[in-house]
């Protein structure tokens, strides 16, 4: 096998993104849905099917079910979801910055780069303060 020396800087830039870049994803999505739904239909046709009084009881390790499964649950799951939302939205806002920032940082005398880094540090700082506040308030206590 011929191992040719090549430089990573010669990264190819393909033609501008067109419909044909996204169209295969649609085909893949159709295949995936077809696989899932097809399996559901096939298995309901092929296998045996019998009903029974005892068979229709909720499985609770052989005990008679005590109460409904629609019950209140611990509030900490709600707190996790709220905290997740804050941080995930923050990360989403950072992606465009991450893509454009390296091309700004390298050039000398570019006034945008220090501005970008300062703004992002401030943005991260606000979320770090929020994180520390949540920590002190006991959001991350899972005992």
């Amino acid at each position, binding site marked *: 096998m011929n191992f040719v020396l090549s430089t990573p800087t010669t990264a190819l830039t393909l033609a501008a993104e067109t419909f044909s870049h996204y169209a295969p994803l649609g085909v893949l*999505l159709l295949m995936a849905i077809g696989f899932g739904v097809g399996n559901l239909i096939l298995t309901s046709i092929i296998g045996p099917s019998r009903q029974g009084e005892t*068979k229709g009881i909720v499985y609770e390790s052989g005990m008679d079910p005590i109460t409904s499964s629609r019950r209140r649950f611990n509030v900490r799951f709600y707190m996790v979801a709220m905290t997740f939302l804050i941080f995930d939205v923050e990360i989403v806002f950072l992606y465009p910055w991450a893509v454009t920032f390296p091309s700004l940082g390298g050039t000398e005398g570019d006034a945008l780069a220090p501005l970008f880094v300062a703004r992002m540090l401030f943005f991260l700082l606000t979320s770090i303060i929020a994180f520390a506040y949540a920590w002190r308030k006991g959001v991350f206590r899972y005992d």
Partner: protein
Amino acid sequence: MSPQFVISLITIVLIVHVMLLATSYLIMLERKTCAWIQDRIGPNRTGFSFGVLPLKFHFWGLGQPLADGIKMFLKEDYTPPFVERALFLLAPVLVIVPALIGWAVIPWGGYYASEGFTWWAWLPFLGGQTVAPFTVAVTGAPLSIGVIYMLAIGSLAVYGVVVGGYGSANKYAFLGGLRATAQMLSYEIPQGLSVLIIILMMGTATTDVIAVQQSLGDWNIWYQPLLAFIFFTCILAECNRAPFDIAEAEQELVAGYHVEYSSMKFALFFLGEYLHMITGSAFFVLLFLGGWSANPIPGVADLPIVGGLGIVLLKFAIFAGKVTFLVFAMMWIRWTLPRLRFDQLMKLAWRAMIPIALVLLLATGVVIYLDASFWILTAVNAIVFIGAAYLYPKLPSDDGNRRVPLAGSRFSPLLPADGN
């Protein structure tokens, strides 16, 4: 019909089949790995004779996945009367669809260059037509948002678990679904931060360019070893794999969110988990292990970026080899480490991995701004690791898993356990 579209379609159709076949054999590899670790032999009897053909040879048990698949289809597909029927039926599809489409942007074969050719004259429609020289990316979809696409599709997996757990109307399933949701949400943040740092280093979110920039041994794992560890841990948690499988902790929750599922509906959950393992490993290989790059030593010769069919297949083999090793490592971890308790699991995400990833993000941003060598990041990783290990015991701690002073409780300091 641009050449890129045709190559993408061929890649997708081929890889879907490769993945589904690989998944069925990964289940067997899991059983074999488990057996080796526990000093057993594992499945070695099921061949291809099906009890009909007079074959004495057992093919090392390679017929096992086929037998399992047939069994899954022939089992009764039971929908209990108390479930939310629509949600119950929707959940397996919601699990399998993200698992099957997440890998679409993985650059399996780098770039393929053709010098142009003429179709054979006897072909209908195409016969005699000439195709101009072209260069295409051998991937399902060469998107500029590639990495973010993978992350987005990966987070869709949580819906299958939630819907399955809620729709089953079973307490085990509901608790399993809740736990799995909390876990997957929590570990998505450090995973997203890791991806963000890699995008920051590479300056692009296009998957094939990320692979190219890591060729010649510039693997990101050399610059961000701690981050690679965090990311791999997140993958384990996102797949609900041990030691993070409290969602289906057998001793407490029987099977977690799929306790009421049977037959092929259960198999779809199972397949989804293994497909997530492959996709997660491929994501890790792409971001940290150089994709198709053959040489881990910086500055040494590597495979050419653009190549013919032979180079493309070789790159695919290297990529698949790395993915297989990582999947094997996941199984190895599963049968080696004990399961984490729920509070330990959540603390690991929120109190350890997220602060560390935030610090690494800040440090990486500053290093990129100063235009310094990436090797400084290795030192930064080491400093952050030592600093975290030094600081963590000094942080204010609340005693986890407190013994609740309840009268009659086994842990009670108030009364003896059996006292009245």
